């Protein structure tokens, strides 16, 4: 099982992020955290890197269900969606596959939620 879903689209980095945000919203996800990897590496290590952002996406009803099934699942929340521009104008968007990462948890009660949330994230990527 692949641990992520990915799609590359042509466009402007910031515009693609807006698009990703919209698609996530349609599936009930809000963005709780946003990390600018490029800016952080520059600031902390003086390293030059390409445009790279990590978005922490959360769907509250599903997060709640997951927490009820497994109280330590917060260690895997929110679900990450990463946006990378390795090559100018080619923006790669990838979302973590929660079904794969939750295999480490081994809790049957989580399987249903993990499956549903996986479907939603896959839809977000497909719709880009």
């Amino acid at each position: 099982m692949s641990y992520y879903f990915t799609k590359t689209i042509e466009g402007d980095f910031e515009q693609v992020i807006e698009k990703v945000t919209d698609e996530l919203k349609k599936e009930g996800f809000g963005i709780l955290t946003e990390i600018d990897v490029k800016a952080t590496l520059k600031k902390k290590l003086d390293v030059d890197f390409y445009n790279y952002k990590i978005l922490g996406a959360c769907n509250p009803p599903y997060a709640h269900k997951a927490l009820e099934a497994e109280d330590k699942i917060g260690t895997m929340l929110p679900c990450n969606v990463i946006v990378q521009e390795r090559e100018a104008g080619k923006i790669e968007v990838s979302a973590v596959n929660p079904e794969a990462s939750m295999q480490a948890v081994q809790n049957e009660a989580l399987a249903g939620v993990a499956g549903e949330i996986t479907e939603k994230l896959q839809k977000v990527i497909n719709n880009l």
Partner: protein
Amino acid sequence: MRKHLLLLSLILVVAIQFTFGQSEGDYYFSKTVKGTVEEVTAQLKTELKKQGFGVITEIDMDKKLKEKLDGVDLSSYKILGVCSPGFAWQTLQAEENIGLFLPCKALVKDNGNGNTEVVIVNPSVLMVMLGKKELAEIADKVKEKFLIALNNLK
């Protein structure tokens, strides 16, 4: 000599399991201490800093869920995003998609009666999934540092 070393490492592993109540394969490590969530969070940040990690994101999950969902009332549950720029850079060089798992998450949760539980993800378990040797080695180093920070909580 080798026998002694083997025995010593065995004792160490058992001691770690005893201290944290989990085995190596678990996806997290946990320790419960006395204090409020705010106090313990501040202490955790100090201990993580000593090990070279900063907290770059902070989510009050209980408040978020209460705000979004009717009738949900959870005890304090913080999710902290823990990151060391140096280690993050090393992992990115080994695997560009590692951002899917960064930053590492730590939880600070109110378990009632003045007990606050600190949970920190076991980075080695997630890295195994990616199947890259360099990543597993970095994850093991990070894991050791997380265990020291957790162990130092009072």
